[in-house]
């Protein structure tokens, strides 16, 4: 049963990547992979993407009250300084 579930999951993920859209990092412009993005019951489901992404609303040059765009981005690589403890 466990094996069957794994095979099924693999097939679904493959299909999601084949049918899905390229996901572009809005910060860097880099393509992060492909994913199927599905809206269901007020939530957005992201299927098949391997990168760790954050959703962001995108800036718009035109003021529109009826439509906003969401994209995805990543954190920059960790580069925090050494901070001595008090």
């Amino acid at each position, binding site marked *: 049963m466990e094996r069957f579930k794994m095979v099924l999951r693999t097939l679904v993920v493959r299909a999601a990547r084949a049918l899905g859209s390229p996901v572009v990092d809005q910060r860097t412009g880099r393509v992060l992979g492909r994913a199927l993005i599905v809206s269901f019951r007020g939530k957005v489901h992201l299927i098949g993407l391997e990168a*760790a*992404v*954050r959703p962001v609303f995108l800036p718009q040059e035109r003021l529109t009250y009826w439509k906003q765009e969401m994209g995805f981005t*990543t*954190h920059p690589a960790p580069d*925090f*300084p*050494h901070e001595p*403890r*008090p």
Partner: protein
Amino acid sequence: MSRVLNVLLTHQPVAQMDRMLAWWRDYCPPENVLIVFNGDEKLLAQLDHPHKTLVDDPRLRTVKHPRERQSYTGVWRVVSRWLEGRDYTHVHFAEYDQLPVTPGFNERQLTYLEEERADVLAFQLQRVDGTSQPHYLYHAALPGFFKHWESFSVRHDRRVVLSMFGSGSFWKRGAFDVTAARTEPFPIYLELYLPTTAHHLGYRLRDWGDQNRHINSLGDFVDQIEHARRDGAWTLHPVKTLWNQPLPTR
């Protein structure tokens, strides 16, 4: 003068540990290798190696490691206790299936740590708070997860969560000991717990950059050792079956 302790975590039979030590002896002095054995004390007694210790922690013995939130906190604590009164300045942690492939790898690690002005070097280090990273999302649902970091963080942004690949990491002694002294408030998967704890304690973590290419989560790279060495690898992961047979002539 820097002195690196290479900590090897293993649960393998004595014959395999003997072969693993024989391999490591070609790359660093035996007195710089500590075996941390997750198994029977009687088996460990049979191992002919001066530096060895036992770790007995049920949170280490998980099957589905991320789901069961496997912990290395017990390992860190045992090693930190072992280090008391000894003059090692750095700790290189490696699981049994991560092996050195380039002579002088400890010196390279020290140089890279210095260049990055880092306290800790980690593989596949990334910031994951607010992201789709599965381990992060699994923990973000836990009550008290964010409050825990906020309770001791010295950072301005106390919601940062870092992730690393757990098979190997390199620590300044101070960062290692202070991280080891912390207590997990509830089970947190080691790949989040260790880097995030060190970060909020004020230590600087850096990614291992180009070396990430040689660290993989799945497979067995036993046939890729020479290729990885030529390709600039310092260490290679995972090599799971090398210790199951007599070592090839080098």
